[in-house]
């Protein structure tokens, strides 16, 4: 159980870090693949408006999903911690010593 929770925490952190980096730095993708610099959206060149939209609504959506997923993960973690007996607490042992 705890191994599963640990792996999930690492997975969530990596996935959302990558998503945030992609939304905040999407302009790099247009530099890396210049062929994408074609067309317009709402009158703007695509390589201008997409990074602005991702840097605003993209980040907000990633944050929203991140909040829902991480808050749910916290509940799972809290459920697991509830199952532990207090005598397993190493910090308590240290204090008692």
């Amino acid at each position, binding site marked *: 159980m705890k191994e599963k929770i640990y792996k999930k925490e690492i997975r969530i952190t990596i996935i959302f870090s990558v998503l945030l980096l992609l939304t905040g730095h999407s302009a790099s993708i247009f530099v890396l693949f210049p062929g994408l610099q074609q067309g317009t959206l709402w009158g703007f060149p695509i390589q201008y408006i997409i990074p602005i939209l991702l840097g*605003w609504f993209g980040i907000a959506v990633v944050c929203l999903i991140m909040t829902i997923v991480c808050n749910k993960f916290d509940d799972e973690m809290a459920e697991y911690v509830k199952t532990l007996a207090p005598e397993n607490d190493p910090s308590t042992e240290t204090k008692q010593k």
Partner: protein
Amino acid sequence: MPAEYALSNVWIGLGVVIILFAIFYAVGYFSSRKTASDEDFYAAGFSIGPVTNGLGMAATWASLATFLGVIALILRLQVPFVYLWIQWAISIPLLTLLYGTSLRRMKAFTPASFIRQRYGKPSTVVIVCWMILIMVMYALGQMVGLGQAFELLFGVPYNVAIVVAGLATVGFITIGGMYGATYNAAFQMVVMTLAMIVPMGAIMKAMGSSGWWFPPLAYGDMVPDMIKNIPTFFDMKYDFRWYFALIPAFTLGPVALPHLAMKVFTSSSVKSARWAVVWFALFLGLLFSGTYVVGFAGNFFTATTGRVIEKADQTILILNVFYNPTLVAAFVMGGAIAAGLSTIGGNLMAIAGLVGSDLLGIIAPNMESAKRMKWGYAALGLGGLAAVLMAFNPPRFLVTSILWAFGLLATTATPAILLGVWWKEANKLALIISSMICGIIYIVISPHVLPSICVGSGLVAALGMSGGMVTIPLSFAMFIILSIGFNRMPALKAYAPTLADKQVIDRIHGWGPDYDESRYNGITWPLIISAFCVVVFIWGLQPW
């Protein structure tokens, strides 16, 4: 013919500023009545809800530069500077994800509170000194900008402006503590967003755009004229390395900014901190999109009217004086001042926390809460006064662009926090060595101290992008490799993480009493990260 900024009626400007300051003082006064302990003073009693905190986070992040500096840089560098600005918005979400909620769980006042628990006193002194240096640079830059704004608005000499504006600012921030800083920042965010967006609608209408009803995203019909007059405006101009270099210097640096982290820590709960980040992204995105449209309109104005904006950092003010009534122009100036004040508030609270809580916590660890709060007030007031005094004749080194200082923070503090939270092997001596050596290298290879020893040239060097691409990966790699080595040397056993240090990591991740030695403790991934850092380091050393 050059366009200049000048209010036709100074009294209107004065009226707007007096009303704003009266509100800030009222908020500060009512906030002071809620402050009864150090938790109230440094963390607003860990009680701030998501919407207020989201507004406060956005206001603290949006500085005077949002109204003045960045627009000037868009006017000069055009679209690449928009891309540079966009990525600031991931700083607080990334900070919250990577360590903000963990440190909120331990009820830290500043990131250095964690450093003290995780690495001990000597490492804390090193990190606190770097953070204070950067906070002073930050606050000083805002204070100088504030003095210049008052000078511009009222036509008074700079020294008079700095005394009046500086003392008035330090006064309401000191009275209110973190409650005041947070509630004022939330109000300031509303003011600056209105001041940025609404007047732009009228300006766009006057410029002939049909998208005046939503300035942030509806100016696409002005694009053909823009391309006709400035064909290179939308060119990306730089190579991939330039864009990649934004990550180490400008994404990883702000992640460790104490005044941003402190906003996350004021949340009423860990879950509330995450919801605050969603609001932050929405509010900041709206304001920043307003900044981009002003930068666009400034370029459009010069291209289509033939007028020259000599002082590019006054673009938003010049556009408003040119197209809008005096009252509106004065309100925009009030918005710019609010942006500066919200950041100074955050900076001074961070200095107070670093000195009054973290350093004092080392000197007098058993001090009572009420006494610590009094020291906090003293540190806050004295920090503000020092910023005002330094603003009279600021040391040249300290007024270097704050963007450059972000690279210094990413080099010296970010590895300590991130590896400290996620890796049990992070070693105290390795932290001190890597932070000191790489921090000094970053300063040396910048053009600001020894111009003859410089990595990169021109803007990339001045902003710390080229230097950061060398020292930030070096700092991470050095920290990891030295930690692995030192932890296996019996002679350096005193610096290895103790069981208590490691238990801190499990606890702040939410594991409660469950401790597992193998968790957050491998060396394979840190070594892979080191190898990647070495590649980036070598890439950064190639000629720019």
